[in-house]
C-alpha cells in the first residue's frame, strides 16, 4: 500500500484534531478545558464544516462527556472524547466504568497539573491519578507522536484480545500549543489502517437486546471480571507492539512499548517520557559523542507497564535515573515511574543502582542545564555505593 504523506506545521492540539478528523468517529462528546480546548474547538469547526460524519455532543461537564461517550460506545459505534487535568479528575469514577465495561474508547488527554494551587501548565499528575483505572496510557513526545498514537489507539483499544479504553497523552502547552513539523497520512490510508469496529454487543441490536452495567454483588463474578480486565491489559503489551510495527511498515514510523537511544553499549541510562525526552536526548547524545556510555529509554506505554521488557533492557547497567513529571505524595519515595520501575528490577541478579528526579511540576521548565546536573550525578554513581538519597527534586527553588 502506498500512503501519501503530507508535511504540515501544526500545534499539538490541531495534530490530534486532524487525527480525529481522519478517524471520523460516530460520536464525540466533549467539554472545554485548558489546554485541551483547542482540540474541541478545531473539531467542532470540522463538524460545522461537514468534514466529518460525527455527531457532536457539547455536554455540560467532563463527567457528562465521559458518561455520554460510554453510552454511545455501548451502541457498538466509535465514540471519543478528550480532556485535561480537572476534567480528567471529574471523570474519575467513569474511567473505571469505561474500562470495566470493556469499551474501546479513545481519549486524548493533554497533561496538565491538578489544583491546588490552580495552575494550567504541564505535569503528569492528572493522568498518573488515573493509572489504576484500567485505561491504556500512551505518552507522546511531540505532535507527530500525538497524531500517530491517536490513530494507533483505535486499533489497540478495539483489538479483540484487549477491549480496553486508551488515553493518548501529550504535554500541555509544551506540545499542545507549540507549532511542530509532522507528517500527516492521507485519509484513505488512515481509514484502511483503523478499519471498522466490530462490536461484540450493542444496545441497538434489535434482534439481541442486551443489559449493560448490571449489578454484581457478593456472590457474583466481580473478581473474575476484574481478573479478565487485567488479562486484557497484559495482552495489550503484545498488541501495542504489533500495531506499532504495522503502522511503521505502512507509514515509516514504527512504534513499540518504548524507544531507546544508545542502549546497545550503555552503562548508564535515563528513563523519561513525553516532551522531556527531547531535552534529555540532546544531553545524552552530547555525552555519547564524548565517549560516555550513557543511553536513554523513552517510555511510551505506561499502561500496560512493560516491566519485564524494561528489566531485560536495564539488567547489568551501573545506574539508572528516572525522570518523573509527577509525584506520589507517599513520603518521599519518588514518582510513579520510578516506583514501578524499581519494583520491576527487583528480581534481577545484576540490578542497577537507581535514582529519581521529580521535575517540572506545574509546568516548571526542564532546561538542558538541569538535565546536565542530573546526569552528572548519575554517571558519578559508583558500583557499590550505598545511595543515601535517591529522590531529587530537579529545578526546585530550595
Amino acid at each position, binding site marked *: 500500500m502506498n500512503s501519501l504523506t503530507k508535511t504540515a506545521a501544526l500545534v499539538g492540539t490541531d495534530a490530534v484534531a486532524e487525527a480525529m478528523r481522519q478517524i471520523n468517529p460516530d460520536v464525540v462528546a466533549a467539554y472545554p478545558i485548558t489546554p485541551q480546548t483547542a482540540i474541541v474547538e478545531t473539531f467542532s469547526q470540522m463538524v460545522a464544516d461537514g468534514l466529518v460524519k460525527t455527531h457532536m455532543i457539547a*455536554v*455540560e461537564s467532563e463527567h457528562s462527556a465521559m458518561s455520554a461517550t460510554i453510552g454511545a460506545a455501548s*451502541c457498538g459505534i466509535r465514540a471519543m472524547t478528550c480532556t485535561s487535568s480537572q476534567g480528567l479528575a471529574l471523570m474519575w469514577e467513569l474511567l473505571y466504568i469505561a474500562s470495566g465495561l470493556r469499551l474501546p474508547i479513545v481519549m486524548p488527554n493533554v497533561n496538565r497539573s491538578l489544583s491546588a494551587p490552580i495552575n494550567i501548565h504541564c505535569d503528569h499528575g492528572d493522568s498518573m491519578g488515573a493509572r489504576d483505572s484500567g485505561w491504556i496510557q500512551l505518552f507522546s513526545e511531540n505532535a507527530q507522536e500525538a497524531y500517530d498514537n491517536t490513530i494507533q489507539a483505535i486499533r489497540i483499544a478495539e483489538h479483540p484480545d484487549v477491549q480496553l479504553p486508551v488515553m493518548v497523552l501529550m504535554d500541555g502547552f509544551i506540545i499542545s500549543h507549540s507549532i511542530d513539523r509532522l507528517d500527516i497520512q492521507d485519509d484513505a490510508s488512515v481509514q484502511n489502517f483503523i478499519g471498522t469496529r466490530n462490536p461484540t454487543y450493542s444496545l441497538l441490536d434489535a434482534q439481541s437486546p442486551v443489559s449493560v452495567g448490571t449489578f454484581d454483588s457478593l456472590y457474583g463474578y466481580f473478581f473474575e471480571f476484574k481478573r479478565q480486565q487485567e488479562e486484557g491489559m497484559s495482552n495489550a503489551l503484545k498488541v501495542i507492539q504489533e500495531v506499532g510495527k504495522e503502522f511503521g511498515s505502512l507509514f515509516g514510523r514504527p512504534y513499540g512499548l518504548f524507544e531507546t537511544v544508545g542502549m546497545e553499549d550503555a552503562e548508564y541510562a535515563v528513563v523519561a517520557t513525553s516532551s522531556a525526552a527531547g531535552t534529555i536526548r540532546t544531553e545524552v547524545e552530547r555525552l555519547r559523542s564524548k565517549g560516555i556510555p550513557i543511553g536513554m529509554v523513552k517510555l511510551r506505554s505506561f499502561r500496560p507497564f512493560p516491566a519485564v521488557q524494561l528489566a531485560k533492557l536495564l539488567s547489568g547497567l551501573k545506574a539508572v535515573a528516572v525522570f518523573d513529571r509527577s509525584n506520589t505524595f507517599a513520603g518521599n519515595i519518588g514518582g510513579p515511574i520510578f516506583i514501578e520501575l524499581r519494583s520491576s528490577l527487583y528480581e534481577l541478579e545484576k540490578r542497577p543502582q537507581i535514582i529519581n528526579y521529580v521535575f517540572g511540576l506545574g509546568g516548571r521548565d526542564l532546561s538542558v542545564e538541569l538535565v546536565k546536573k542530573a546526569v552528572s550525578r548519575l554517571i558519578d554513581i559508583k558500583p557499590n555505593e550505598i545511595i543515601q538519597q535517591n529522590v531529587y527534586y530537579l529545578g526546585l527553588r530550595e
Partner: protein
Amino acid sequence: MSTKLKDLAKKPQILSGGHRLCAGCGAPIAVRQVLMGVPDDVKIVVACPTGCLEVSTTIYPYTSWNCSYIHCAFENAAATLSGVETAYRSCKEQGKIKEEYRFIAFGGDGGTYDIGLQSLSGALERGHRLIYVCYNNEAYMNTGIQRSGATIKGTWTTTSPFGNNSYGKKENQKNLTAIAAAHNIPYVAQGSISHWKDLVRKAKKAFATDGPVFLNVLTPCHRGWRFPMEKTVEIAKLAVQTCMWPLYEVENGKWNLTVKVRDKKPIEEYLKPQGRFAHLFKKSPEVLAAIQENIDREWEKLLHLCGEK
C-alpha cells in the same frame, strides 16, 4: 392504541416479573404504566441511574428487562442516555439500523433531584429525544431512607430524624417538575401510580414527543414511608386528593391540570397513615399547619398557571 384496561393488559411486559423489588413497591408500577405508552412498532433502550430499580432488576447474570438496558453510575443516567440517543441518530443517518428506537431513563429522586440534576438539566437543554422518568419516593431508599431534595418538610428519615431539637426535615421539597418546565422543553408532566389512565396517557404523549420529556411520578415506598405494603396505591391517591401531588402537564409551555381536585382533603388524611409523620401528630402539630400552608400556596400558584383561576 387505546388506554382501555383490557387493551393495555394485552401489551407485552417489558419489565418482566421475577425482579427483586419489595412486594408493594411503587417503582415497578410506575415503570409498567409508563411503558404501556410505548408504541407497538418501536424498540426502546432503558437507562437507570444507581438505585432500587437498578439493583433489583439486573442482578448478574439475570435481567428483568426485555429490552436493551444500561446502567452507568448514579448521577449520569441522562448524560449516558444522551450518548445512546446520539449514537442512534448517527447509526440511523448512516443507514446502519432500520428500527425506530425511543430512549427512556427511570431514576429515583436521589439520582434525579439531587446528584443527577446537572446531568438531567444538560440533557434537557441539549434537546435530545429522550424521556426521563423520575420515580419519586421522596428519599434515598436504596441506601436506607435518607432525606433528599424531594423529601417534604417534617418527614422523618435516617438523616433528618426527629429528636429533642428536631421535628424531622426542616425544608420544603424543591419543585423539580417546574424546574424541568423552565427548560422550555416540549413536554413535562407530573403523574401518580394511583391514576394509571392519566399516567398512561401522559406516557403516550411522551413517546410521541420529538424532543426531551420529563415525567415526575409519585411512587410511595412502604419501607421508607412506614405504611402497610398493600396500601401503596391508596397512599398515592391520597397525595393527589390532598393536592400534595397535583397531576398536571406542561405541553409546549401550556400548563394544564389533568386531574381536577374539587374537594381538597386536609393534609392530615395523607400524613396520618404514614409512620414517617407520626412524630408530628404527637409533638409538632405546628409543622402540620406549615405543610398545609405550603400545599395551599403551591396549589393556588398551579391553578393560576393552568388557567383554572
